[in-house]
């Protein structure tokens, strides 16, 4: 009880409340601008979090990401351009509703079910995390190694790309993480005599480069999206309660799928939305209406992507393994603020954890009034030309990177990773896998080398303990799954030809 009261006191601090409101507005605006993802919004916030209190810093990440995920629905619905990848799954459906004159219903469904999804996801975080934390207290380096490896494999498994390219991206990330002296032996590796590289590659400049600079680079060579015509909206929430009652099963299914996908390391809100939209269509009583402007898919996928956002914090808080790219950034902030992820976080810093839950709920509640305001102002904000937004973003990338350590080398790193991200995306290499490799590299190596030293080089102890055996089989399954699918498809094709 004392911890809970302390948590309320932490959240009620003026700096935290200001951070929540300011990051909510920021997340809503950035998320609504086509091409600017929730991850990018979060990555650009990190330099600012350096100067905030731990709770205010975490509050900005949670609030901005939740708002940006919802806000991505707005241009998707009005312009058929998803603001964030998490909205892409149901953009056509939402736009079809707008063309039928139901823009308010589509936007209202996005807002209402995003808020519900976010709150249900938070409840799952509250329930699951402490239970898993107790279990995780008995984990040794073997389990942590397999868990981290499984996280990396899941990221490659869910990538909408060639699994070989996804694994290569992940390995590239791990290779970047090898740079510097932060290895179990403390030996400088791949520094090429540069003192700036001795400390290793910081995840934040890499994230800002991969997600923000590469987006500005893409904007340089792609045409400007069409302008939104000026329009007035009717009541946004009208009819949402009716939809909640009518589609309660799809809504709950979306929440549960979102939670499960969020907990999977590496799979985020966009994957949750795609899976939920597909399931909604498959299990619907009216599948023929999908694609013609039917709200059911929006209900399920809208709830799903926001539910995954909260549950993605479960592996991040417990094991330091990111549930998605946003929590990959959040882990960096947690370490920076002395809230080192791990099961002991729930026992030693319980009040901070409760504060985090409260912020999640608060963010999803204020999403409704602020979201309505954002929808009403959308026609003004979406008319901002790209040539006025992108130059400011590139300036923020430079200053933000510099602010992380008052070091100009970070600005160079941001530019380098921008080029890497741009080239990779253009050639079908998923950048999320690269980011996970960079973030988790030292953790994987630390646990791998420590386990090898403990086992005297023998591989047997890696699979002797029951939990590590289960995790090892899951990891190998994830590794071999694409090969299995490939062989199955080949056999099917051969049978069809015969």
């Amino acid at each position, binding site marked *: 009880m004392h911890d809970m009261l302390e948590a309320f006191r932490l959240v009620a601090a003026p700096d935290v409340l200001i951070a929540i409101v300011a990051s909510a507005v920021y997340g809503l605006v950035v998320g609504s601008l086509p091409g600017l993802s929730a991850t990018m919004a979060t990555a650009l916030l990190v*330099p600012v979090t350096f100067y905030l209190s731990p709770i205010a810093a975490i509050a900005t990440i949670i609030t901005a990401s939740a708002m940006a995920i919802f806000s991505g629905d707005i241009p998707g619905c009005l312009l058929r351009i998803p603001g964030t990848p998490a909205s892409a799954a149901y953009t056509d459906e939402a736009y079809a509703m707008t063309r039928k004159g139901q823009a308010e219903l589509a936007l209202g469904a996005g807002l209402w079910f995003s808020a519900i999804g976010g709150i249900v996801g938070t409840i799952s975080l509250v329930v699951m995390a402490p239970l898993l934390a107790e279990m995780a207290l008995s984990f040794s380096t073997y389990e942590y190694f397999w868990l981290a490896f499984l996280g990396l494999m899941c990221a490659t498994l869910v990538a909408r790309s060639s699994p070989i390219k996804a*694994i*290569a991206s992940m*390995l590239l990330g791990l*290779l970047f993480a090898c740079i510097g002296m932060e290895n179990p032996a403390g030996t400088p590796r791949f520094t090429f005599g540069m003192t700036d590289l001795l400390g290793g590659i910081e995840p934040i400049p890499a994230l800002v480069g991969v997600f923000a600079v590469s987006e500005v*680079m893409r904007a340089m060579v792609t045409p400007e999206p069409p302008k939104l015509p000026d329009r007035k909206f009717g009541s946004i929430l009208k009819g949402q309660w009716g939809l909640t009652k009518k589609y309660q099963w799809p809504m709950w299914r979306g929440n549960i799928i979102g939670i499960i996908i969020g907990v999977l390391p590496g799979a985020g809100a966009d994957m949750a939305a795609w899976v939920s939209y597909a399931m909604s269509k498959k299990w619907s009583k009216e599948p023929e209406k999908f694609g013609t402007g039917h709200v059911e898919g929006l209900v399920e996928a809208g709830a799903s992507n926001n539910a995954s956002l909260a549950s993605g914090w479960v592996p991040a808080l417990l094991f330091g393994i990111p549930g998605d790219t946003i929590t990959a950034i959040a882990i960096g902030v947690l370490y920076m603020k002395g809230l080192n992820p791990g099961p002991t976080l729930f026992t030693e810093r319980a009040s901070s954890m409760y504060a985090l839950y409260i912020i999640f709920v608060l963010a999803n509640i204020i999403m409704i009034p602020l979201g309505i305001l954002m929808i009403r102002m959308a026609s003004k904000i979406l008319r901002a030309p790209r040539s006025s937004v992108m130059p400011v973003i590139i300036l923020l990338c430079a*200053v933000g990177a510099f602010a992380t350590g008052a070091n100009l080398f970070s600005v160079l790193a*941001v530019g380098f990773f921008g080029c890497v991200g*741009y080239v990779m995306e253009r050639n079908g290499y998923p950048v999320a896998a690269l980011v996970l490799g960079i973030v988790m590299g030292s953790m994987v190596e630390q646990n791998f080398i420590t386990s090898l030293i403990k086992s005297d080089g023998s591989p047997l102890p890696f699979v002797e303990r029951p939990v590590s055996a289960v995790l090892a089989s899951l990891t190998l399954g994830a590794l071999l799954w694409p090969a299995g699918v490939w062989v199955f498809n080949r056999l099917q094709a051969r049978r069809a030809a015969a």
Partner: protein
Amino acid sequence: MQLSDRTTGLFLAGLGLAAAWGGSRLPAVPGQDVGPAAFPMLIGGGLIMCGVMIAFGIGHSFEVPDAEEGERHSTAYGLRALVPPGLLLFYVLAVERLGFMLTAAVIVATAAFALGAKPKLAVPLAIGAPIFVHAVFAKLLRVPLADGILPAFW
């Protein structure tokens, strides 16, 4: 910058080879079988395998074709993508001498013009954005931004 799978695959295989070779030359830790070389060599091996498979087109069937990104442009037009990293490089080289305000103004104006902005948008943006960013980062967050030849007026 669209490259063939063969090119990217061979590049990755080469990088893997270099990582494994570089790793193998790292000094061992006295009294231990496993040292700092193990992980880079493992990653290098993995990259070589993946690179070779990508070069041979294995796994290509899993790829989801990208949505068409508008009309195709010439290579010279494609080079515009290098403007943002070029501007970041300019920031590194110029900020200590010119100061934040001037450097930021040049960056914002160049990026805006490269994106097709007219002077009536680019010029006010190049004046206003550096002032705003300086106010937030230098005044509010106390980030030591260089004054150079044109310090902020506050």
